[in-house]
């Protein structure tokens, strides 16, 4: 059974601010789509529109073959009838009900028999590895445990679509790692179409089949994580994705197969570029040499920041400052001379004016 979600020209305003601005998306049945963006970009509002918790001011939403919302037709199916489950940022477990009641609440509404309810509750608790917690109140559990119960509550009534609103943001870093793996596994085994909201790019990159990056209510790019990372559609996406941040350098293309920067030039694929551009180089795409070499540019090691698995080196040449990533612990010392070499095949060029990617 297909549960492809189609969003057409969706717009939602709050007073004068446009929270979601004419967004169109198709989420294939069974895929995991992440809405990614800084806070206030409209990602949560978009999710809430799909859930039916907000009434959009324009556009249409289909879930499977069912139209659940249409502004032009005046249709809005209530949230409870959209057959979707949601996990909230603060879990939203009902504090006055024990775990069992929290889970069976929806099942009672579906008028399931006692035995069936029990069975479903056990199954879903087993799914999140919380078998012995039926008799606990939410406040008697840790944040991570509450998170699992919130998941179990959603799983128990078997929605066709999972909606998750920053479900991991209230957990500590370590637990977040574990839960990422669990969530991805859960999606894999259930096959439910999932929309996941986060501002954490690592979460988005590690878990999604597709990522939709948003900014100020406008969809910036919808693509696979790999392509989002490799070919950000514009400077905003390029800047938002990647840690340490991508290096963005103002330059000029005069048709010589290279980009002229302030004090030096870099060889790049400039077939579609002319005039003022911004050059984007990921920190790991720049190699560090301790000896001069043709094509390598001399820099000063301004700061060296090892972090175990890799080292970030902040390199300076005049006003140009670059982040460079080296695997392992670097032997470079601060204020040493280094030579940087750019890999021309992975550099992206952006139009200075529009900020859009100039396809290579």
């Amino acid at each position, binding site marked *: 059974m297909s549960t492809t979600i189609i969003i057409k020209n969706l717009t939602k305003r709050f007073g004068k601010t446009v929270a979601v601005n004419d967004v169109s998306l198709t989420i294939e049945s069974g895929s995991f789509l992440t809405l990614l963006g800084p806070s206030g970009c409209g990602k949560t509002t978009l999710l809430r529109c799909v*859930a039916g*918790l907000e009434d959009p001011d324009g556009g249409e939403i289909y879930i499977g073959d069912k139209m659940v919302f249409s502004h*032009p037709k*005046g*249709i809005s199916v209530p949230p409870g009838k959209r057959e979707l489950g949601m996990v*909230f940022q*603060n879990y939203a477990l009902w504090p*006055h009900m024990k775990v069992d009641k929290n889970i069976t*609440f929806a099942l009672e509404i579906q008028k399931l028999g006692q035995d069936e309810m029990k069975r479903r509750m056990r199954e879903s608790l087993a799914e999140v590895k919380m078998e012995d917690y039926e008799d606990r109140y939410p406040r008697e559990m840790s944040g991570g445990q509450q998170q699992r119960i919130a998941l179990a509550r959603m799983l128990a009534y078997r929605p066709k679509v999972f909606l998750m609103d920053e479900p991991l943001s209230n957990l500590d870093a370590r637990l977040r790692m574990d839960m990422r793996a669990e969530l991805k596994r859960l999606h894999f085994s259930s096959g439910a179409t999932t929309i996941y909201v986060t501002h954490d790019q690592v979460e988005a990159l590690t878990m999604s089949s597709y990522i939709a990056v948003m900014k100020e209510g406008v969809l910036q790019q919808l693509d696979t994580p790999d392509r989002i990372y490799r070919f950000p559609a514009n400077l905003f996406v390029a800047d938002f994705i990647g840690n340490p941040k991508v290096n963005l350098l103002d330059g000029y293309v005069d048709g010589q197969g290279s980009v002229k920067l302030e004090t030096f030039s870099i060889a790049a694929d400039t077939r579609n570029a002319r005039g003022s551009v911004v050059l984007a180089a990921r920190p790991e795409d720049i190699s560090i040499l301790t000896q001069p070499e043709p094509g390598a540019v001399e820099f000063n090691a301004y700061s060296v920041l090892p972090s175990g698995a890799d080292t970030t080196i902040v390199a300076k040449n005049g006003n140009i400052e670059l982040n460079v990533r080296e695997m392992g612990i670097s032997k470079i010392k601060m204020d040493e001379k280094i030579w940087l070499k750019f890999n021309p095949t992975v550099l992206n060029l952006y139009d200075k004016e529009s900020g859009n990617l100039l396809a290579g």
Partner: protein
Amino acid sequence: MAEFEISQQAFSLRLLATTRRFLHWLTSARVVLSLIMLVIMFYMVIIPLYRMVETTFTYQEKDVYRVPDAQVGQITLFHYIRMFNSQMSKPYLRDPLVHSMVVSFGATGLAFFLGGLLAWMCIRTDMPGRKLINQLALLPYIMPGWTIAQAWTVLFKNRITGGAPGVFEFLMGQSPPVWLSYGPVPIIISSALHYYTFFFLFVTAALMSIDSSLEESGELMGASRRRILMKITFPLVLPALLSGFIMTFSKVMGTYGGPALLGVPVKYYTISTMIRSAIGIGDKADAFVLAITLILFSMINIYINQKLVGTRKSYETIGGRGFMAQVAKLRNWKGILTTIVIVFQILVIVLPLGLLLFDTFMLTTGKYSLDNLTLHNWIGESVKTINNGAPGVLRNPKIYGFAWNSIRLSIWTAFFTAVLGVILGYAIVKGRGTRLSRLVEQLAFIPYVIPGIAFGAVYISMFAKPFGPIPALYGTFTLLVVVSVAKHIPYSSRTGVSAMLQVGRELEEAAQLAGANTWRRFRRIIFPLTSSGFVSGFLLTFITTMRELSLIILLVTPTTMVLATQTMRYKENGDDQMANAVIIILIVLVSIGNFLIGKFRGGSLKKGLGM
């Protein structure tokens, strides 16, 4: 032709869509509940106000004798001219207005001084016994507002009103001066001793929430204690002071008990007592002009205060990190000051109660000897020569009837107020930012600015005749419940809103996604989660209604009499001991209610005041 048909079809489709969208909006729980609340408040607040204003602009039956060619129901400015620009104006309106202002400013000022000082001493000095002082400060508020006034008459009664001498005269051998017995001074003092609790609560909360680093940084810059107090502390608690000011001023303006007991005997009328008297002689329209004047003054006062503070709630935004402010050292004064404060507090509570209780044991008023002591007023059989033949209060079935009226009035009022509170809270919080929500919130605030006695007056005009689907309610018990609920709407919406803010919206949304309909969400999620606010709101309304006088004094009839109004009735008939016995019964009942608040986890007087 075909084109025309298509565009017509498109038009009807668009119309259909718009209708559907409207219906979708209209049938959402928040909108339905908001609209129900609007209708209820429209009936309970707006229409009565309108009817009152309407009455003042039309000739009434009595006016036919005053104006030769007047016809009942004809539109006229007669009552306004009569009240503002005739020889009636001075005794009926101008003097009482001046008196009301004098009393309100005086009482508010004194209450401000007492409450503010006490709060400062409790929070910002090293005075021992602060906890006790804190608790004692709340007690006067539990007693009915006119308790101290009534005790005052026992103590300072003088010969000017005739009858028996008071305790003061018995002890001192001479009659106390009139200014001490009656008039503005005793009214101001007795009201202030009741209302200083407001200031105490507001200022304590404000002082506690001031971030101490604000004061510390002043100190680091070398400012003196005094300078810090004036330049930093005072401006920060100013909003709290003004909130206390608004509340106290409005309450004193609309209060009936004190001015009736201590002003009327010497013809020192305030607007509130004059309203009652005008209604008593059948000049309803005149009374309404007075009530409108009172409402306008109350509104102007609140408006000015709001302009000064910026917003009525700004005291809530002071909030900072915990409380670790430096305390002023009282040194040698410690013992003396503590003693003075505690003695003062006990005097304010114990002395009035003691006087009232003592008075109920006297057979003949004003005869201070041991053989005059009796339990007759409490348990005696009916004797023709005593108390107009009434039996002792505990033997009097009527008193039990009135007590029952008091209790059931309080229970019904508290119940409906609590229910309205939850619904108002839901409608306002869920709709935050929408015009509908703002409208509901503003409408719910209106009864706040209408002083108690004026609110009672408003209701006389409204429900004397059937109106729409509502039958004539005048003289019924239902009317008392309706007016009490209406007057409590501002408080219930405030408690409702704060209770609802505690319930994260996701909790309801999660239930919504699980397919729960509105009723189920209320029953299973919203009611259980707001029940603590609901119960403390319930108990608070219960005790405030129990001792409410000003609001219902104009509306009770012999069958719907409650304890509070019965004490006034006994006072008016000169049965002082009976009046005092009844007020003691009332205080006992209220104390039981207050005890229950304390028992209930999380409930408190402070919470009920919306703090």
